[in-house]
């Protein structure tokens, strides 16, 4: 299958006087329909990678190809249009606009590109709100919704322009267990129904274990890239274990796919 997104040797360096290297040559391809978890410790570079995938940030070097085109050759407005059509964002803190109702929030990405909502877009917005289960609250201001409901609206908003890739940054990081479970299930269902590609940044090993593919990044490099379905449950859990535990596990089990990192 043709790749949806192809990252090659992405390097990102911050600062000029004091240089901090966040990514040290990341190459990565995402296949259409894939449901991928991106894991790694804080400061590992996963947020930087997510920002570059979302075209919110430009790499210092390397390229990102979509449909054979180098995306970062586009100017800022070109990137905005690309982002609007291709990518849906679900953030940790939902990031709905409090000035607008749930329904209006869902339509924002459509209107940002086309000005006015078409009847078809309005129908789609209502259908999406129904799909994520908050159609009864669609005329509420986002501040009048619970955390779980807000995140559901945010998911509907991410999907309004029928993006090919949805980037979710800790989508359950700010929710209670029950809402967290529901959101996790919802994202997976949407992936299966629409074949939308997902990349989810998460600390939640349960989410990671349920993904088609898990990519772990550390110190600006991909240190592990495996498919839980192809490993035994024990191997998967060993791979997903926190670093401190891995030392002890290492002797007993063969860790999944790529050997563990230097630590």
């Amino acid at each position, binding site marked *: 299958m043709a790749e949806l997104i192809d990252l090659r040797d992405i390097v990102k360096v911050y600062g000029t006087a004091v240089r901090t290297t966040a990514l040290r040559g990341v190459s990565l391809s995402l296949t259409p329909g894939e449901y991928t978890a991106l894991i790694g410790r804080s400061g590992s570079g996963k*947020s930087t990678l997510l*920002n570059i995938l*979302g075209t*919110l*940030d430009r790499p210092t070097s390397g390229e990102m190809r979509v449909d054979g085109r180098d995306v970062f050759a586009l100017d*800022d*407005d070109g990137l*905005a*249009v*690309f*982002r*609007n*059509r291709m990518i849906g*964002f679900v*953030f*940790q*803190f939902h*990031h709905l*606009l*409090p*000035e*607008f109702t749930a329904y209006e929030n869902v339509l*924002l*990405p459509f*209107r*940002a*590109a*086309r*000005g*006015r909502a078409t009847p078809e877009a309005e129908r789609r917005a209502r259908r999406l709100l129904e799909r994520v289960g908050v159609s009864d609250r669609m005329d509420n201001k986002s501040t009048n919704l619970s955390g779980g409901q807000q995140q559901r609206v945010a998911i509907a*908003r991410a999907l309004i322009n029928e993006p090919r890739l949805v980037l979710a940054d800790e989508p359950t990081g700010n929710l209670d267990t029950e809402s967290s479970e529901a959101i996790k299930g919802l994202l997976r269902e949407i992936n299966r129904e629409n074949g939308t590609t997902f990349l989810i940044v998460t600390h939640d090993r349960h989410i990671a274990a349920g993904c088609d593919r898990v990519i772990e990044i550390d110190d600006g490099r991909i240190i592990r890239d495996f498919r839980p379905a192809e490993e035994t449950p024990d191997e998967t859990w060993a791979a997903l274990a926190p670093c401190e535990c891995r030392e002890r596990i290492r002797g007993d089990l063969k860790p999944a796919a790529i050997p563990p990192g230097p630590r």
Partner: protein
Amino acid sequence: MFDVFVAFRFLREGRAQTVLILTGIILGVAVQVFLNALIIGLQASLVSRTVGRSPHIIGTMPDLEPAAVLPADPGTRTLTRVVTNEGSLKPIRDGAAIVPQLVKLGIFRVILPAARGSGFILQGQKSLPVILLGSDLEDTDRLYDIRRRLTAGRYEVGADSVLLGKDLAAKLRLGVGSTVRISLPGGSGDLFRINGLFDLENQALNEGWILMPLSRVQNLFGLDRGLTEIELQVEDVFTAEKTAADLRAVFPSIRWRSWQETNASLLTALQSQSSSSYMIQLFVLLSVTLGIASVLAVSVVQKSRQIGILKAIGTLTRHVGRIFIIQGAVLGLAGSILGVTAGWGLILMFQATRAGDPSSFPITVSFGAAALSVFVATAAGTLAAFLPARRASRLNPIEVIRNG
């Protein structure tokens, strides 16, 4: 379209802030409109009081330049002086021929060919100086508005009957129907019957003026058919100086003086009044602009999260800027329209409280002035939004999104 939608929503949801800044703009514009109308009304009333019932341009014979008898010599200075026969009048050369030409121009409200000379009236040992104005009574009324201000008698003059200022009559203890002897500097004189008394609300005129037919003055002073002056009124008083300049070019033998020339101090007063009013208006406008700018600057900081999200979902940079420009323009437009209305209300109230006061004067807001206020305030609002808009459009979405 999207930017308009978001801008209006930001304004609507920032209620307290929007109301506060709108109130500021309304007050500022209302004061500006009120002040402007007041100054314009005051000036119009002042000008009309000063020159409304007097000639705007007067044409007379220029003073004679004494002819130098000695040849010019750089080493010596020659003092010469012209001695004229006291009481004799110098008529305007071709005066009678010029009047029809002025009529033909069709730019004058009133053209009053007149003969004016001085005489006196003896009262016991004292002699009271008087001015004899000979002119057509109808035209005189159109210029000086005398008929309405007659306090006694009829508005009528003849070869042996005149109109007198009321203060002069009071001094002489004479009334309508009495006879008065008017003497001329040469010693001649005649008896006249008083037909009526007028009150021109000016002591000098009320004590000194005597109106009689043009031909009578011409005949008393031996002017033949000559005129000593041509008094003119134009439609717009402020064009008088320009018209006078044109007349100087066309009829160079006559000395044309506009009211601006003879009332230079009034003109200076009006100008300094205008400039102080402009200064106040400028500062009002400046504070309105700064108010809008600071409210929008705060708004950009408050809404930085929203701006970041809008950019992340693919809003173009220029649209993000426009969201704030539109807010500035809308604040300026709405605030100034309401402000003009409020200013107009202030004027009506001001008029109502002064109704019946004889010193009151009419104040009105011209549509043009109101439209200008709205235009300037809207432009100022738009301009004020530029810096905040630039800040908004340069905002990096990553920073605001990371920090939640």
